[in-house]
């Protein structure tokens, strides 16, 4: 069916030839802004891929997404028994302390780990369909974020059971901390997903590295415990240079609230640093900016690697 150009209203279903069409280029190198514009154009795909991962993950399982709650709940229970009851670390409301840090960490870990294998695991798509491949890594981070939202239910339950109210001085920093964490995780995700195509060890290496990284972040033990010892060597800055540390601290400050509470053994325990909200804002802001630059670098490197994806897979 040909559309008449002189006609008053072109039929919506009719094909109009000779109209102005956008031109796009396929060439060896695309600039970083072009790549980012392309990712933005496919933002609906990001949503669909995230929805797919969530739907597929617990498909045909009886408990469904409840599994994603049982996982951190079990973790918290075990660590609570080991550290509170057996090792007697003396931290009051240890379950809440664990839940806050773990929530942030799980988002980071599952996002980065899922993303590392994302391009390789979707090789069928990468070889047959053209779309910005960065989306695959970003979708892993996105679905980790959705599971994070599910898991906040666990934290909410603990907060209600122990009657703890979030701190009004710090709770507004949580969205900024999330932004910082997501930005950093996305940058890492894009970089690692690209490298993993050429170096399949990356997947296994990350599993080990993330374990070390987990213990380098104050989730199980209190920040003050380690920083006390690091301070003697003047290395606190190194501890804080790990982007997941300030994010975990923000979560803990906002939901665990107390910095120096009375311990279960009757003496005061130092758990969180006594920095004010502005210190957190400055640190989180720095992470956001640096992570954004890291993201641009990752996209650039990914672009360089992408050219041979279809052959390497």
């Amino acid at each position, binding site marked *: 069916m040909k559309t008449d150009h002189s006609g008053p209203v072109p039929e919506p279903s009719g094909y109009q030839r000779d109209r102005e069409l956008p031109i796009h280029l396929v060439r060896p190198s695309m600039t970083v802004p072009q790549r980012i514009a392309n990712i933005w154009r496919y933002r609906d795909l990001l949503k669909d891929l995230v929805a797919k991962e969530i739907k597929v993950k617990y498909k045909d399982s009886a408990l469904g997404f409840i599994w994603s709650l049982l996982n951190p709940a079990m973790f918290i229970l075990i660590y609570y028994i080991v550290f509170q009851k057996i090792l007697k670390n003396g931290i009051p409301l240890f379950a809440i302390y664990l839940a806050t840090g773990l929530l942030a960490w799980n988002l980071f870990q599952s996002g980065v780990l899922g993303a590392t294998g994302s391009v390789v695991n979707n090789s069928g798509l990468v070889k047959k369909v053209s*779309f910005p491949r960065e989306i695959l890594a970003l979708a892993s981070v996105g679905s980790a974020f959705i599971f994070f939202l599910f898991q906040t239910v666990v934290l909410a339950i603990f907060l209600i059971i122990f009657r703890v109210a979030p701190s009004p001085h710090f709770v507004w920093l949580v969205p900024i901390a999330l932004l910082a964490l997501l930005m950093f995780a996305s940058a890492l995700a894009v970089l690692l997903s690209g490298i993993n195509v050429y*170096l399949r060890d990356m997947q296994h290496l990350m599993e080990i590295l993330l374990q070390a990284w987990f213990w380098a972040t104050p989730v199980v033990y209190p920040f003050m415990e380690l920083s006390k010892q690091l301070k003697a060597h003047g290395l606190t800055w190194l501890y804080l240079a790990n982007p997941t540390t300030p994010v975990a601290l923000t979560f803990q400050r906002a939901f665990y609230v107390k910095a120096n509470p009375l311990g279960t053994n009757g003496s005061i325990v130092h758990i969180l640093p006594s920095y004010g909200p502005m210190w957190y804002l400055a640190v989180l802001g720095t992470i956001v900016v640096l992570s954004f630059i890291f993201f641009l670098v990752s996209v650039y490197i990914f672009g360089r690697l992408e050219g041979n994806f279809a052959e390497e897979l």
Partner: protein
Amino acid sequence: MSTAVEVVSVSKTFRLFQEKYTSLKEKAIHLGKVPHEVFPALSDISFEVEQGVTLGLLGHNGSGKSTLLKCIAGILTPSAGEIRIRGRIAAMLELGAGFHPDLSGRANIYLNAALMGLSRKEVDARFDAIVEFSELGGFIDNQVKFYSSGMYARLGFAVAVNMDPDILLVDEVLAVGDANFQLKCLAKIREFQEEGRTIIFVSHSPDLVRAVCSTAFVLDHGRLVGQGPTAEAVALLQKFQLSGSGLNHDPSTEDHRLEAAISRDIHISSMMINGVDADRGVELAAMSQVELAVVIEDVASAAGACHVEVLFYSPAGVALIRAHTREMEMEPIIVRGTVEAVVQFSSLPLAVGSYSIQVNLYHPQSGMMIESRRWDNGIMIVGGQKGVGGLIAAEANVFVNEVSSRHFL
């Protein structure tokens, strides 16, 4: 008319590894230097495709036609050069690539369309058309893993053609599915052609390319070795196949441009069907005797020779009958002045309907096509038994036999 696809000196090299070192240990041992050969899959290809043209890409296995298509689709990035594409492109390299088996047909439509760059709103608007074309009906909410391969292919094709693409890339995907599905796909492709959309079509089947495309390019060893009307390009491809599949053949030493290679001394001047000019269309009764008299003229007034091939095409472009004098092991027809080559069919078993006839002349030694002419709807079969149709003429009688009797009280 404007250019839809512009390919500017595109090259693509693949690295061929004897052994691939992808683990860290192996990379460390070989210090990142992996022994490999560089294989040029495409070398310095440039061409333009006008809007509304249906272009066929021909070539034997490994000639680079699929690589070229993947570069145009943006799946592979060329090593050098660039490709300018005007408008939305939809690539059908594999039907239903990206379908997730655990998701329903409905969810997969959204996912697949999003992969091709459609927004959610655009998919909503096309959803009903996609379901209708796929003929899935109520199965659309079933998980895709329960679909038959035909249903899978239909859904994949339905999503791709309903993307409203300005440029459609098709790679050998019509080979799947049953005859009905293939006809439906061909009909959709014809509709796209009439609407003035650009189509780039890759197929191993010269018949299919001849049926669909107006012009064709021939690729050999990553080079563009010929371009022209489909019939001539198919002839060139056949020549390459005759010369040992071109495998140990260096295209740079010989000029294979069609223009130079084809002798234009011999012409088809007209064709008579049972004494009536084919240009006017001829009506025949089913199963009747048919004589095609091809009038061949020697323009250069020097005796030439040729082989004649006659093809009958169905309305969907499927070759139904083919007769080729070389394959019938006949001597070449000597053309001195004007001759009439008569191809006689004692009874033409075509069902009621109209059919196209194509006559091709081939050079006797090289097998190259000299000329090709087609008479669309040149023959019309009328009469026949009422209620019996299809493509092949048949006579049907219906009986009812009592197999076992049952008494009704």
